[in-house]
């Protein structure tokens, strides 16, 4: 819906762009150099302190045939999908429960949001202690009920489950906050109309509530997707990527390549590939959101 093309109209529109100028300038000024630097050096074989040698797409070819990189991508994709779906479903469920409760909501909600307030590193350390055999909290609690705790860190599958669980624990509140607010705005008229029409609680949920929250769901999915895919701190602290490389995410791989193996160029190339792997689905999700808003 474009405003009329009077000379005054065009002038006014550009002033709006002026409002965005400071933010955009800060963003791109701080963004362009680092991203440019990374993309530039991704085309070189570069060890910090030595002379870089141009290798063109060599790093990229290397990565796409690197077993470690492919394994990391596979793990990251599964990790992202599982945690994303869990956070959306749990977030919605908790938000709905909060709808049904009266005054106790205030205290309970702060407690429920707590996990989101600490850093990923902090949650990593805490849960490493919790999951540790023998003296960890979980193992001791389970032994009270005579259940033997699995070796969370020795077994690749349990280790993967552990990092997934902590991610869900820490970031579900993000979804809860957003969904709960969204629920406040679902028109009570629509809800009443549905109730009068005889729709039960489940029907109302499925046909009225969720469709109205469609684009918030997509927003949460988009943000969580980008963040879960790039996870680094918590896994580095909790499992170090182990056992073996069972929990090595793509960011962990990129970090090791760049800073432990000292292949800076290859690490930057991994970063660029990660960006591409995120840009494609995110653009699709954003398009979906715009379509949802247009309705």
């Amino acid at each position, binding site marked *: 819906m474009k405003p009329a093309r009077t000379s005054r109209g065009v002038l006014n529109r550009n002033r709006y762009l002026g409002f965005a100028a400071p933010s955009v300038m800060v963003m791109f000024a701080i963004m362009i150099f680092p991203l440019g630097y990374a993309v530039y050096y991704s085309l070189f074989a570069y060890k910090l302190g030595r002379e870089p040698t141009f290798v063109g797409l060599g790093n990229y070819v290397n990565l796409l045939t690197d077993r470690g990189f492919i394994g990391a991508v596979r793990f990251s994709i599964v990790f992202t999908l599982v945690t994303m779906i869990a956070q959306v479903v749990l977030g919605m469920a908790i938000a709905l429960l909060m709808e049904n409760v009266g005054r106790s909501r205030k205290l309970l909600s702060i407690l429920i949001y707590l996990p989101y307030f600490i850093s990923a590193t902090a949650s990593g350390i805490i849960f490493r202690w919790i999951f540790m055999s*023998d003296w960890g909290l979980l193992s001791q609690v389970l032994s009270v009920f005579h259940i033997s705790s699995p*070796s969370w860190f020795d*077994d690749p599958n349990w280790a993967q489950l552990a990092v997934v669980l902590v991610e869900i624990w820490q970031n579900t509140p993000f979804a809860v906050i957003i969904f709960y607010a969204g629920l406040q705005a679902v028109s009570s008229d629509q809800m009443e109309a549905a109730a009068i029409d005889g729709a039960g609680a489940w029907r109302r949920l499925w046909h009225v509530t969720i469709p109205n929250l469609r684009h918030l769901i997509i927003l949460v999915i988009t943000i969580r997707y980008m963040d879960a895919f790039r996870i680094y701190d918590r896994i580095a602290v909790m499992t170090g990527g182990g056992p073996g490389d*069972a929990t090595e995410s793509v960011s962990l791989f990129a970090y090791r390549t760049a800073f*432990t193996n*000292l*292949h800076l160029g290859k690490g930057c190339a991994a970063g660029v590939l990660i960006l591409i792997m995120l840009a494609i689905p995110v653009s699709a999700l954003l398009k979906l959101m715009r379509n949802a808003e247009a309705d």
Partner: protein
Amino acid sequence: MKRITSAVAGFAVLITLTACGDEQPQTEGTNESAAPVTLHLLSHTYASLEYYAGQLEAKAPEGVTVEAEMTNYSDWQEKMRLNLASGSDSYDITYITPQDVAEFAANGWLEPLDDFVEKYRDEYDFDDIPEYLWEAYSYEGHIYGIPSHQWAMILFYRTDLFDESGLDVPETLGQLVDTAKSMTADGRSGITLTLAAADMLMVTYQSFLTATGGWFWDDAYKPQFSSEASLTAIDYIMDLYEYTPADSSTYTNNEAVVAMGQDLATMALLQTTRSSAMDDPEQSIVVGKVGFASAPSLTVGGPSAAIWNTAGYSIPKDSAQDKELIFRTIANATDKQSSAGGVESSMPCRESVLTEDLLDGRSDYAAAWKAIQSGATLRPTIPEFGEIMEISMTALSSVITGQAEARTAMEQVDKEVEAVLKDAGYYN
């Protein structure tokens, strides 16, 4: 509304101005006699390093103040690398290990200290520090660091449990496995090892490799991870793994110290830097019950399953301060008096401090000294070793946790490591 907006804007401007105003020159003149000088230290931290940082601060020469910034190892490495690579003069003294000396010196980031060592040889009695230590801090014939302390892997064991059972402290690897097996009882493992990839696992792997007489590569730098010696070492580790606490594959020093100190393990293969924790009632419930011995060898009399390592201080080449002044500051903090004072928390480097008396009083240092003399090895100091460690230990971790078979995995490691060394020009 308007007032709030202008107040906010004003506040923002104020903050920015304050921030800009906070920029003061980091270092002052290089006039060593008159103007006061501040030297900035960046260091890793544990008990011994805290002690020596304190010594740097306390024994700085006239007119010199040392400001210490302590972090954990990986943050130290990250931050120091960035500063050195960009030629920044933010730090004048840095904590250093032989492995980091190799990487930094290879990039031309450290100040060579040969001339100063010569000049001050008598004043600080540098001959008191054995040759093998000076060599550890050298790269291509030049010295780049001053040693402060050292340590080695030794066997920790529960004197009370051994007395009870009547078993002897194991002297060979075979005996170690048998003892670990018989000592494994309800709620208590026979032994605890540090097996977290990559750094701690390398410490353990290299220790066993030392005992079986193997090495990472042969004289032509061809990788030997699938050699018989290496596979034997791995076999012993896997045999012992059976008798370690659950989750051992992720154990770092702290977890192993907890296992030993909480009566969850009978023996441990750990560094001397952790021995004092055993007798600290705030850290352990087995005070007075832990003894120390040299780690077992393959056969009686052979090299102990031990590595040794050391830490010291270096001078960044781009520091803007007078290098000789910095050298003297470091030398003061690592002289005989400081070394003697640091004995509590770590093994000294100076022979005059590492006396018979000391060894009599500290069985852990005695065990370590024995290991060092019998052939304990130092982690390789080639710049490529970080990558080699990553490749090999990730694979070994998979082997230990049953995700891969030892021989095939190590043969694959040999191939990959060979490619790394080839790229780095070792085969020309």
